[in-house]
Every structure is written in C-alpha cells, then in structure tokens.
C-alpha cells in the first residue's frame, strides 16, 4: 500500500541521514571530542536526573491533589478563576521563572528545583483538573445511586476514569522538565546545561553536543518510560491504547 511504503521510505531516509551525519561527525573528529567528556557526562547526567526527579516528583505530589481538589463540586465557582491564574502563570517562560527563583532564593540547587517545580506544576494541575471534569456525570450519578460514599466514588470511579488524561499531563510535564533543566546551570543548579552553555561560550561544538545529545536522549527516554507506565497502570477498560 502506498502509505505503508511511504512510511518505510521516510524511515529509511531518516536512518540514512543519521548514518551520514555520524560519518561526517566522525570524519570531523566530532565523535572523539564528545567522548572526551565521558566522565562529565556521567556525573552531570546524574545531577540532571536528580533535579528532574525531585522537582518532577514534587510537582506530581502537589499537582495531582491540587487538581483533584479543584475539580470538586464545592470548588466549582473558585476553580475557574484559579485555573485562569494558573494558565496565566504557565505563559511565563521557564528562564524567567528560574531567574525570579534565583532572586528570591539565591543560587544553587534549591532555587533550581523550586523553579523547575513551578514550571512542571501547571500541566499536571491542568490535566488532572480537566481529566476529573471529563468523567461523565452519569457515572458519578450511577455510583451515587448505588450507595457509594463520595470518597469511594472518587477512588473507584472518578480517578480511574481520569487516569489516562492525568498521565498525559505528567508525561508532558516531565518531558518539558528534562528539556528545560539545562537552564538550571545558569543559576548554579548543575546538570548537563554546564556542558551545553560552556560549549557555546568556548565555541567548542564537541562539548556542547556532549551536553545536548544526552539531554535530548533523556527527554525521549523519560517520555517513553512514562508512556509505558501509563500503558500498564491505566486500567484496560479506560485505556485507549490497550
């Protein structure tokens, strides 16, 4: 079929392009200059992942309950305004958030984690809120009519049905987190940003790529892993992928 061949053709083209880039890189000594930084890469990747894990973990720990709370009927009036404020907050660029965190908390790992936490919070809260509101009202009505208490309905009906959308929010937030964590270097938080920014400053593409490539790979990896987690955790009945 035409579209299958098109797909294969594109895939082949990408592989070929990657190969050519690789050959070109090796001839230019690029690969060697990247490998030179192995030690740094390993160390900084660990630092990077720590930043992501802590800020991301905290974002989930605060964001999901917050989103749940906002979706409750008692919050109906206030929730819209709060979501508006949060949406407003999400338009503020991460660099600005980190900069403001630095002016409040100084330099180092703490403001970096704080800044990344704030940036990751918003997609999670928004998706949790939207996911919960998206649970069909008649399911809650049926559960109520059967004699389930509000907490039971939340646990057994509402959250499972919102889980797919909640996971989508977590996935987006974490991928963004990994991708913007390099900026943490600028305020003293460490991470792979060190190689990237220094590489640009010193005009050493090798160093820059030594930071950039692992970051990009990490972002893809994190996105993939959360995707796999979502696939297995979200109950089959509400999982469009299963």
């Amino acid at each position, binding site marked *: 079929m035409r579209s299958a061949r098109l797909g294969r053709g594109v895939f082949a083209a990408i592989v070929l392009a990657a190969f050519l880039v690789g050959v070109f890189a090796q001839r230019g000594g690029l690969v060697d200059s990247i490998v030179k930084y192995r030690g740094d890469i390993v160390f900084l990747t660990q630092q990077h992942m720590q930043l992501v894990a802590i800020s991301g973990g905290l974002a989930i720990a605060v964001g999901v309950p917050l989103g749940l709370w906002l979706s409750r009927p008692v919050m109906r009036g206030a929730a819209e305004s709060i979501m508006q404020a949060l949406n407003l907050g999400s338009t503020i660029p991460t660099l600005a958030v980190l900069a403001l965190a630095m002016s409040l908390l100084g330099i180092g790992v703490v403001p970096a984690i704080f800044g990344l936490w704030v940036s990751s919070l918003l997609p999670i809260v928004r998706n949790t809120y939207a996911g919960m509101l998206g649970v069909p009202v008649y399911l809650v*009505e*049926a559960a*109520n*009519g*059967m004699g389930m208490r509000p907490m039971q309905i939340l646990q057994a009906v509402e959250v499972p*049905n919102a889980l797919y959308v909640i996971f989508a929010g977590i996935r987006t937030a974490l991928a963004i987190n990994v991708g913007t964590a390099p900026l943490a270097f600028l305020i003293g938080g460490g991470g792979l940003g060190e190689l990237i920014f220094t590489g640009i400053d010193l005009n050493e593409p090798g160093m820059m790529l030594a930071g950039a490539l692992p970051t990009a790979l990490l972002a893809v990896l994190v996105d993939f892993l959360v995707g796999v987690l979502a696939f297995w955790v979200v*109950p089959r009945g509400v999982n469009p992928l299963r």
Partner: protein
Amino acid sequence: MIRLENLTKAFDTPAGTVIAVDRINLEVGGGEICVLLGPSGCGKTTTLKMINRLIEPTSGKIYIDGKDTDRQDPVELRRTIGYVIQQIGLFPNMTVEENICVVPKLLGWDLDKARERASELLATINLEPALFLKRYPKELSGGQQQRVGVARALAADPPVLLMDEPFGAIDPINREVIQDEFLKMHRRLKKTVMFVSHDIDEAVKMADKVAIFRAGKLEQFASPDEILAHPANTFIADFVGTDRTLKRLRLIRVGDALEPRAPTLVDNDSVERVRELMREHGQKIMVVVDAVGRPQGYLDRDVVASRPGTAADHRAALPATVRVDDDLRTAVSRMFMHDVRWMACVDRDGVFAGFVSQRGITRLLGETYRDPTKRAN
C-alpha cells in the same frame, strides 16, 4: 411494598418556587411493575429519585416494606435498592465482574460469594459467564451493556428496583427483545419494580400499574387496560393516543377471546352430515381437521348447501391462522390482511382450538364500557 404518602418536592428557582412533585399518593404491591409515565418535566423522574433519596423530598413520606425511609442513612438505603439509569453507567474502568460486585462488596459480602453471584446473574441474562466476566464495558454492545446494568442492580438481591428510562438508549429493534427478556426475568424473580418512561407503548407492555403524571400531579393510577379504556380526563386520552382501543388489543391473548367451542369435521364426513351440524349449532363456517386435530381447510354453508359429496371434496383452504398465545392485535391485523372477519386459532402443536371473530373481539373490548361499576366519571 412501596408506599408514597403526600410526597412533595418544591424547588427554588430565580423565577419563583416550582412545585415539581405535588402531593403524590400511590402504593405499589410486592412483585409488581409500576411505570411512571408522562411528558417531559412532569415530575416522574424527580419522584423516582426521591425514593432512593438522590433528591430529598420537601414533605411527605416514603415507606419501603413498611419502613419509613427518612429514618435510614441515605447511603445505606441506596445499597438496598437496585438503581438503573438511562445511560446505563457501567464503570468503564472495571470489568463486568467488578461492576456487578460493587454493591455486594460495599455490603461486606465474602468475595467468593460475590463472584459466584456475578456468574449466576450473567447466566440469568443470557451472557456466558466464562466469556463475559472479565470483559470491559467498552467491549460490549449496547444491548449487552444494558443487561449487565440490570444484573448489577440485582447483584445484592434488593427487594426493590428503580429504573430511569432504562431502555431508552437502545435501538428500537433490540429494545423489544430486551423488554421481553426483562419481563421473563421479572416473572421469575418477582422484584418490586418502579420505572420511569415517556413511551405509552412501553408502559402498556411492561406495567402491572401505570401512574400518569402531569405537571407534578398524579392524574391516574390504574392498570394499563383501565387507563386505555377509561382515561380519567382528556389530557390522558390524548396522551395515550387516539388509537387507544387498538392498543388494548395487545393486552388480550387470542386464547381469551375464543368463540364458544364448536365441533369440527373430518375429511370423509358427508355433506349431509355437515349441513346437519351447521344447522344444529347455527354455524356458517366449520373447520375440517385431520386425525390429530390439525386444520386442513374449512367449509362454507353456502357451498355445501346444494352439492353432493364429502367434506374433502368441497373444503377451501384457510386464508390464515393465528396462535392462541398471540395477542389480539396480531389476530386483527391478519384479519385485515386477508379481508376476513373470522380466523381459526391453533395451539402450540398446531391443533385447532377455536375461532375468533371481529364481532366477538369488539364485544369483549366493549365489556368494560357496559360494566356499571366502570361508568365514566
């Protein structure tokens, strides 16, 4: 079993107080199906939802099995009442088995007992347990989902079942089938059922008693035949439709409308004998049957009046037959189709059981109008 006493619900709206349900009094006996019927906004759904306290009554009392529902915790109350809604509401994140076991688990049943019950119920609704227990709602057809919804409501074996337009979401063809299945199941389980509908035909088919609502008031509460034959006012007469007498035909079995038994003929009866029997019983038409009693044809008095021979020589084929278990609507429809005013009826084995005639049917339908205790009010 369910008794409503002066049940009232008033809502406060920006436009003033709206009385959605106005002093309803009715009683549904154990094992009966009561249909709440009426146009949109008449208060029937509100009334239903007050029974399981999804909506709190403004005043009035509800008694289930003699107990005042006010005295019970609403959540506990709901666990003893089966509830089925129009959108069905099977939880998509749970398997069929888990869905059915929800209320038993809430009541603290042993898990194995609950699972066994789920299996049993699936068998009752004609879904093979081995195949369906572990399926998810998204893997079921609309009709299957609806049946599982009913099974879920019956899981904890509640004495009372409340249903809010339960068959509304199913296409008309499947709806007939599912309604029949529900009736069959009800004959066996004998639950007290209260259900809301806006479809007069559904109510006529399913109900033991129909409660007609308008603008919050109960206009009439009686059996379907009573409502069709003696609607209490013009609103109800209009609501049930101008063809209401035809609707009544559906409620009567052919077997209950048979003419008094007349003798039958066999093939080698002589024509003289035929004439004699016809004269004796005042019949114009008689059926010829075989050795077992199955109809072979009929003889008309005019045809045998002046001809020699046997029954076999002159019999004509029966234009059509109808079964004793069919309803009169089918019989009348067939009569129209074949342009006859009478029809031969056979039982399940095909043996001749008697005649129905148009005259006899209209006389039967008219009985209720000649009954002095039922004079129009």
